[in-house]
């Protein structure tokens, strides 16, 4: 029997390897596809997207190309990846909805406009801002040569986020949601508003830590994913 599929979409400035431990933990039970944005990681040589829409379209195209409709599938968006995954479902997957939507470290789309605009800041100011929530490794921060390589995709992703406009025109999803969050990172009242986005069940799972609480909690998150998938099958 083919395994169910899990498509993971990462955070702004992130690369597919963010999900590598989860991929390894789930390997026996689930086919995990960690998606890479153009201009990042293994796709470093590819041009950046023009805008958020192009990014969502590209992610949808990758998912559709890998999709085996004989097995269930799930999406897992982390931070910016949550919004991307949401838009992928809304715009491109109407005929093949996910069985479960896992999201982490991001408030729902209608609250996203409140985000502070930082992409146009100088490199130094930008780094200062993302460092506040653990968005950059300290060793990377101190290495100006490497920073010049890794900063452009990060700033570009934040520009997409800042330009993202939620159109208030949506139908509630019909799949269960699981929201992973850290109270230190995201206001619980905001996270709870994901309830408005589905007619199915919503589960909220709190973790300790900063915006990148997935790191160090891969086993628990993987177990949650596995439990949900077996429930759906």
């Amino acid at each position: 029997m083919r395994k169910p599929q899990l498509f993971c979409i990462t955070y702004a400035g992130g690369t597919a390897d963010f999900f590598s431990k989860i991929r390894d933990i789930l390997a026996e039970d689930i086919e995990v596809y960690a998606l890479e944005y153009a201009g990042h990681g293994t796709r470093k040589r590819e041009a950046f997207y023009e805008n958020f829409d192009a990014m969502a379209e590209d992610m949808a195209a990758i998912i559709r190309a890998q999709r085996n409709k004989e097995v269930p599938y799930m999406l897992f968006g982390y931070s910016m990846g949550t919004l991307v995954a949401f838009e992928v479902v809304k715009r491109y997957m109407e005929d093949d909805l996910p069985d479960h939507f896992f999201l982490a470290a991001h408030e729902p789309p209608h609250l996203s406009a409140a985000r502070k605009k930082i992409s146009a800041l100088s490199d130094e100011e930008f780094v200062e801002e993302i460092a506040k929530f653990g968005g950059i490794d300290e060793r990377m921060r101190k290495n100006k040569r490497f920073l010049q390589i890794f900063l452009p995709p990060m700033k570009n992703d934040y520009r997409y986020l800042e330009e993202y406009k939620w159109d208030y025109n949506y139908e509630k999803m019909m799949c269960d949601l699981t929201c992973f969050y850290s109270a230190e990172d995201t206001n619980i009242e905001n996270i709870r508003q994901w309830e408005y986005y589905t007619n199915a069940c919503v589960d909220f799972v709190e973790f300790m830590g900063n915006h990148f609480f997935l790191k160090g909690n891969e086993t628990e998150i993987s177990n949650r994913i596995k439990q949900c998938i077996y429930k759906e099958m």
Partner: protein
Amino acid sequence: MTNLEKYTKAFTESFEITADEAKGLAYQAISAWDSVGHMDLIATLEETFDIMMETDDIIDFNSYERGIEIMRKYDINMEE
């Protein structure tokens, strides 16, 4: 120690893997070879071979084997 052995050692020490595991390894194939791990590996290689790699080479360095080709660009003999 040959240059190839020194090169492999940079992988084994940066990513805490064996020499056999290093061979054939690709960027992001293991969690240790992420963007920060990449930075560590490049810094180790630059120090080991006393070179300063170009930005394009740092970006193109996406596997153990590709790295050997890149090392040769810097006139490093990578024969066994």
